[in-house]
């Protein structure tokens, strides 16, 4: 099962023939992803060899879907072309578009997330590492070999904190890890993933990683209180961030008194979500909670 991505997923790569696209397509294939094609109008009709596998290049997402039955696209195109790429994918009716590209103008993200929604296409990202269902499929740039399959679900704004937790909990393993991205406007939120993990029979516990900026974590806390029965463990980065400064991610900024790490931590704790003081402590909280769940189930 997992969420949004399984071994059945057929994946297209927009921008596969560029440097990053080539590098990560190779890595996705190595992780078991069923990459069925690339999209590049100037190289349509060719194939690209990745070790043992020849991947065809299509002129459009629509052609790629017709020929392969693709239901996921991973977007690596440069920022200036991302809006056109996502719009094309949504017009073709693809179910999921994972937008890795960093540095997309906010007005473009506002336009394409609204448009994709109207067409029924889920966007993950932009400015995200993608998502991985370990042992099944990897759509994006998350390193696949630092963890194994298991029953923890993870949703995070941050790529490297995702990797850190995947690695700390590598002996327990993950159902799906979703990097939703650090931009101010993203297509899939913490809440969307919490809802999906709640429904996923292969997920027992959920890790939610947030950071300063906006109020997505506070809204997620309200959602957890109302709708999530599975245990959730939280981590928030950016307690020491000064007001008014962007901390690496375009969306990671404390504005006045809003968007602080403290407010997010308090909201989560008020919703019954333990929040780790460090990534390592967060991993320990997850393990403790899992053990308690299992002991409870046996009793």
């Amino acid at each position, binding site marked *: 099962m997992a969420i949004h991505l399984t071994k059945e997923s057929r994946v297209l790569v927009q921008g596969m023939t560029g440097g990053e696209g080539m590098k990560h397509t190779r890595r996705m294939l190595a992780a078991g992803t069923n990459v069925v094609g690339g999209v590049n109008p100037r190289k349509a009709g060719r194939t690209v060899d990745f070790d043992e596998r020849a991947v065809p290049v299509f002129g459009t997402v629509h052609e790629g879907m017709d020929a392969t039955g693709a239901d996921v696209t991973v977007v690596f195109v440069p920022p200036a072309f991302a809006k056109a790429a996502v719009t094309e994918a949504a017009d073709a009716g693809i179910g999921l578009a994972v937008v890795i590209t960093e540095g997309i103008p906010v007005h473009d993200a506002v336009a394409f997330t609204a448009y994709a929604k109207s067409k029924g296409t889920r966007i993950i990202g932009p400015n995200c590492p993608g998502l991985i269902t370990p042992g099944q499929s990897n759509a994006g740039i998350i390193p696949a070999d630092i963890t194994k399959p298991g029953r923890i679900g993870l949703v995070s704004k941050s790529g490297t904190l995702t990797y850190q937790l995947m690695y700390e909990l590598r002996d327990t393993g993950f159902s799906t890890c979703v990097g939703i991205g650090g931009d101010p406007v993203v297509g899939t939120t913490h809440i969307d993933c919490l809802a999906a993990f709640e429904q996923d029979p292969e997920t027992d516990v959920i890790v939610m990683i947030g950071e300063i900026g906006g109020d997505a974590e506070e809204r997620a806390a309200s959602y957890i209180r109302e709708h999530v029965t599975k245990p959730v463990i939280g981590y928030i980065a950016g*307690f020491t961030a000064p007001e008014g400064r962007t901390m690496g991610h375009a969306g990671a900024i404390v504005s006045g008194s809003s968007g602080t790490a403290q407010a997010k931590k308090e909201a989560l704790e008020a919703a019954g979500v333990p929040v780790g003081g460090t990534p390592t402590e967060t991993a320990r909280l997850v393990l403790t909670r899992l053990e308690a769940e299992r002991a409870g189930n046996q009793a």
Partner: protein
Amino acid sequence: MDLYEHQARELFEEYGIPVPRAEVAHSPEEAREIARRLGGRSVVKAQVKTGGRGKAGGVKLAADPAAAQLTARHMLGMDIKGHTVGKVMLAQPVEVEREFYVSYVLDRAVGRFLAIASAEGGMEIEEVAATRPEAVVRIPVDPAEGVTTAKAARIADAAGLPPQTVDVLVRLWEILTREDALLVEVNPLVRTTQGRILALDGKVTLDDNARFRQARWGDEDDTHEDPLEAAAAAKGLTYVRLDGEVGIIGNGAGLVMSTLDVVAGCGARPANFLDIGGGASAQIMADGLSVILSDPAVKSVLVNVFGGITACDAVADGIVRALDSVRLTKPLVVRLDGNNAARGRAILDERAHPLVQQATTMDGAARRAADLAHAA
């Protein structure tokens, strides 16, 4: 990037939003000349990218050109909330009958822009919203439709703004979209005693991600008032200077923010945020180290790297080569974890630099760097 008030005013004027006559002065003499051109009386306004300027003495009425010169002399060089006043704007005074508030802001919760409008402008809109929420209307804008005259009329009507503001709302939306702004705000938008609508003060924040298609502001990046931040920016590094003593280098924005927090949790203060990204090449590592080591407040340096896509041995190679080009003057604690961590640690062990030590966990590395900073 935030624009100065005078730049926002220029944009308003260019897009046909009425503004008072005004000019910018960099010296008291220039201020006197401008005041004369404006007809004698003027409002002298410090140009700083921060709020609360009026309360800090950054806005003064000058009765004549000599007074404008004196006021400008006092204001230039003044410190307002950590911002040094480098220029003042002199504007023709207007007689205000009513003050309104209008803005377009990004609503991250729904991924759309909101029109915010109130017939009670002038003061902080947050205060109005907190005390009299019914006096502030918030109307989402469909990105595909934008703000048409009909939409603007609905916004103005809902907020109780006079019909003459409809045109201002339409033109402000044009600024927002054509200039790739994340925020445009007019506060106050006023009606004068003669019945004219004027934008008296404005704020515009531009999207840094859109610079590739917004050539106009390319050379205008003076946001790095700190010399180290300017040096880091020139090298393409994502660096924010803080006021602590533990220098920090890491890969990935979230992990670096987390590293700052963990160091603070050990009782030390982080000296900076520096994200060297996924690649962590020798050049980037050397550039980052040289920026951090040139901060006199730094007493120890913590390198916290998780090897995901870039394996730790490649990162360790980068650190070793950086140590060849940068003279290390402070103790350096390195924590490598993830892919090929053992090989990476062996490479650093082999280099055996006397000022470099390793820790295997993030928490342990932060503790060590904090202790070294305290001992220094």
